[in-house]
C-alpha cells in the first residue's frame, strides 16, 4: 500500500531500505587481501602475530577437546572450530577489566580473558571448580540457558555505569539465541539506559539443526538492533580484522557514554552442536561445509601474515606444540583435582557464614558419613 505522502516510504519500502543498508563489513577477504584499506585497524606486527597465535592455539584446543571427549576424558563440549575470528578477534578488542558473559560455546574467550585451561576442562567434566572464576578474571561461568546472558549483560553494564567505570560488558549468543525474549530484553534495556554493553550474535547458521532462515524473517540479525535504537553492524565473522574493528568501535562508543552496540558475525561451526550425539549430516550438506571452509579465518589470516613476512610454518608449529603441551599439563591438573563430593555441593548452597537450613544440615551429616566410607 502506498503511503499518503509520496516522499514518505511505505512500510514495505521502509523495511527494504533498512535491510539494504546492512551490507557485510569485511576488511580481509578469503584470499587474505585487504579489501577495505580505510578500515584497516593497522595493528602492530606483534598484535597481528598474537591474534594469529591465539587462533591457531584455539583450533588445536578444539581438536584436542574433541578427541579427549571421544576418549571419555572430557564431558560436555561444544566445538568451536570455524568461529575463531568471531570469538577471538572480538575478544582481542577488549581490556582486562571488561566483563564477559559467555554462552557455553564461548569458552575460548574466557580462557584468553584469564580462565586457567584446567578450569575449562573441569567445567566440561561437570566439576564446579571449573566455574570458580579467579578473582581477577572478569567473566561469568558459561551460560546454559540460551540467551539468558543478554539481559544479564545489560545488568553488568548498568552496574559499571553506576560505578563510573570505563569498562564494558560483552556477551555472546548464537543465531538461535537471537530469537529468545532475553535477547530483545537485553538489547532494549541496555539501549534504554545507554549502558556500556556489546552484544555479539555469532550467526553460525544453525541452532543445533534449525537453519538460520527458519529462525527469523529478518534478513539480518544485526538489523534487530535498530528496533532497540542500537548502532548495529553485520560483520564477516571469518575475518579477524573486521570483527576486531567492529568490536573496538563498539567499545569506544560504550566507554564514551554512547551506549550499547549489536554485532552480528557471520560464521560457521565446522563441528557438531555438541559432542552429545548431534549429527550435522542430518541438516546440512558437505557442499555447504566446504563452502564455508574456504572462508576459514585461519587460512586467510595466515596468508595475510605470511605475505607480510610475519608468519611461517615454523612459527605455526611452535604454537601447536605449545598448545599441546599446555593442554597436557592442564589435563593433569584437572585429573589431580579431588573428585567433587555431594557435601561440597551442600556447602555452596547458602552463605557459609550462616547456619545451614535444618534439612540440608541433616543431609550433610548423612552424606559426610557416606563419603567417609
Amino acid at each position, binding site marked *: 500500500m502506498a503511503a499518503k505522502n509520496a516522499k514518505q516510504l511505505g512500510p514495505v519500502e521502509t523495511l527494504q531500505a533498512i535491510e539494504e543498508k546492512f551490507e557485510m563489513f569485511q576488511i580481509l577477504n578469503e584470499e587474505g587481501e585487504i579489501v577495505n584499506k580505510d578500515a584497516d585497524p593497522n595493528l602492530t606486527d606483534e598484535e597481528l602475530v598474537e591474534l594469529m597465535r591465539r587462533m591457531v592455539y584455539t583450533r588445536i584446543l578444539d581438536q584436542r577437546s574433541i578427541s579427549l571427549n571421544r576418549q571419555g576424558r572430557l564431558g*560436555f563440549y561444544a566445538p568451536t572450530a570455524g568461529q575463531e575470528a568471531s570469538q577471538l578477534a572480538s575478544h582481542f578488542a577488549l581490556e582486562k577489566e571488561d566483563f564477559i558473559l559467555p554462552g557455553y560455546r564461548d569458552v575460548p574467550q574466557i580462557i584468553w580473558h584469564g580462565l586457567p585451561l584446567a578450569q575449562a576442562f573441569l567445567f566440561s567434566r561437570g566439576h564446579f571448580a571449573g566455574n570458580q572464576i579467579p578473582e581477577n578474571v572478569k567473566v561469568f561461568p558459561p551460560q546454559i540457558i540460551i540467551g539468558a546472558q543478554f539481559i544479564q549483560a545489560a545488568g553488568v553494564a548498568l552496574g559499571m555505569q553506576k560505578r563510573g567505570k570505563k569498562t564494558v560488558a560483552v556477551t555472546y549468543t548464537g543465531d538461535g539465541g537471537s530469537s529468545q525474549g*532475553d535477547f530483545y530484553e537485553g538489547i532494549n534495556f541496555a539501549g534504554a539506559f545507554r549502558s556500556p554493553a556489546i552484544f555479539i550474535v555469532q550467526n553460525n547458521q544453525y541452532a543445533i539443526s534449525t537453519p538460520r532462515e527458519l529462525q527469523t524473517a529478518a534478513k539480518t540479525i544485526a538489523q534487530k538492533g535498530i528496533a532497540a535504537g542500537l548502532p548495529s553492524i553485520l560483520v564477516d565473522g571469518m575475518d579477524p580484522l573486521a570483527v576486531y574493528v567492529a568490536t573496538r568501535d563498539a567499545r569506544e562508543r560504550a566507554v564514551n557514554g554512547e551506549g550499547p552496540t549489536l554485532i552480528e558475525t557471520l560464521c560457521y561451526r565446522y563441528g557438531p552442536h555438541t559432542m552429545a550425539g548431534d549429527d550435522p549430516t542430518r541438516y546440512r550438506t558437505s557442499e555447504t561445509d566446504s563452502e564455508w571452509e574456504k572462508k576459514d579465518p585461519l587460512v586467510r589470516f595466515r596468508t595475510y601474515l605470511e605475505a607480510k613476512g610475519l608468519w611461517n610454518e615454523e612459527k605455526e608449529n611452535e604454537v601447536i606444540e605449545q598448545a599441546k603441551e599446555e593442554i597436557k599439563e592442564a589435563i593433569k591438573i584437572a585429573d589431580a583435582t579431588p573428585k567433587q563430593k555431594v557435601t561440597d555441593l551442600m556447602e555452596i548452597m547458602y552463605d557459609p557464614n550462616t547456619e545451614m537450613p535444618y534439612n540440608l544440615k541433616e543431609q550433610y551429616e548423612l552424606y559426610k558419613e557416606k563419603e567417609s566410607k
Partner: protein
Amino acid sequence: MAQLTMIQAITDALRTELKNDENVLVFGEDVGNNGGVFRATEGLQKEFGEDRVFDTPLAESGIGGLAVGLSLEGFRPVPEIQFFGFVYEVMDSISGQLARMRFRSGGVYNAPVTIRSPFGGGVHTPEMHADSLEGLVASQPGLKVVIPSSPYDAKGLLISAIRDNDPVIFLEHMKLYRSFREEVPEEEYTIPLGKAAVKREGTDLTIIAYGAMVQESMKAAEELEKENYSVEVIDLRTVQPLDIPTIIASVEKTGRAVVVQEAQKQAGVAANVVAEINERAILSLEAPVLRVFAPDTVFPFSQAETVWLPNSKDIVATAKKVLTF
C-alpha cells in the same frame, strides 16, 4: 507385537495421534527435519508434512505462547520443550496462561495442550537439563502431570494426554528412553490419566514411586524379598492428580509405606503423597511413612550426579527402617 524402547513408543503415540486427529500439531526446537535431539519425532515431519510437524525459532516462551494461541484456533498442540530444565523460560505460558485458560474464560475456552519434555538424572547432561521439576508444575491447579516409567505406559499415557481437553505436562525420563525394551502393541490403546499401576503385589510394605525410581523400587523390592519381606510397588504414572484410592487401598493392606522420588526432598511430589496417606489412613499405619529423595541442593554438576541420585540401596535402607519400626 513389537519390542520397543520408550522413545520409540513415544514416537509411535505421536504418529497415532497425528493420524487420528488432524488438529494435532507437533512443534518445538529441532523436532522437524532433525527428529528431535533424542529422535522422539523421528520421521514424523516426513510422514505428516511441515504443516503438522515443524521447527520453531529458538524460544521456549514462544513455544508456550504459540500453544495457547493455536488452542484458540481449535488445534490440539503437542509442543516439545527440549529439556525440562528450560521450563523456567516458559513458566508464564504454562502456569500463568495454559493452566487457567478454562478457568478465566468461565469454561468457554480450553487448552488441549500436551507439553512433552525430557528430564531426569543419570545421563551426565550439562546444568539445567536433568532437574526433576515435576513438583513445580504439580503444584499448579489446572495442570495434569504425567511421568511414564516404561515403553508400554508411555504410549498409552501419551495418547490419553493428547486426547485430554486440558493441559498435560508429559515428562519423559532421559535415562528410560533407551534403557530397555518391552512389548508395545501396534494398535492404539489408552491408559487413563490419574491412575496408578500396581507393579508388584505384596503385604508387608508399599513403595510408591514414579519415573526412573520405579525400576529402583522394583530392584529394592527384590532385595527385600530375599529377606522375606513381601513388598508392593506402586507406580504413580500421573503425579497430579494422584490416584488416591490405589495408594490408600495398598497402605491399608500393608500398614507401611515408603515414597520415593528422584527430586530433592523439598521438591517433587512425595510430600503430597505422605500427607494424603496421613490424612486418610493414619489408623492403618504401623510405622511413620518415610521418603527417599535427593539432597536439597541444586541438581549437581554431572561429576557428583551418581552419588547424589537416590538408588535401590537407599530405598532398601529406608524400607528397613519402616519395616522394623
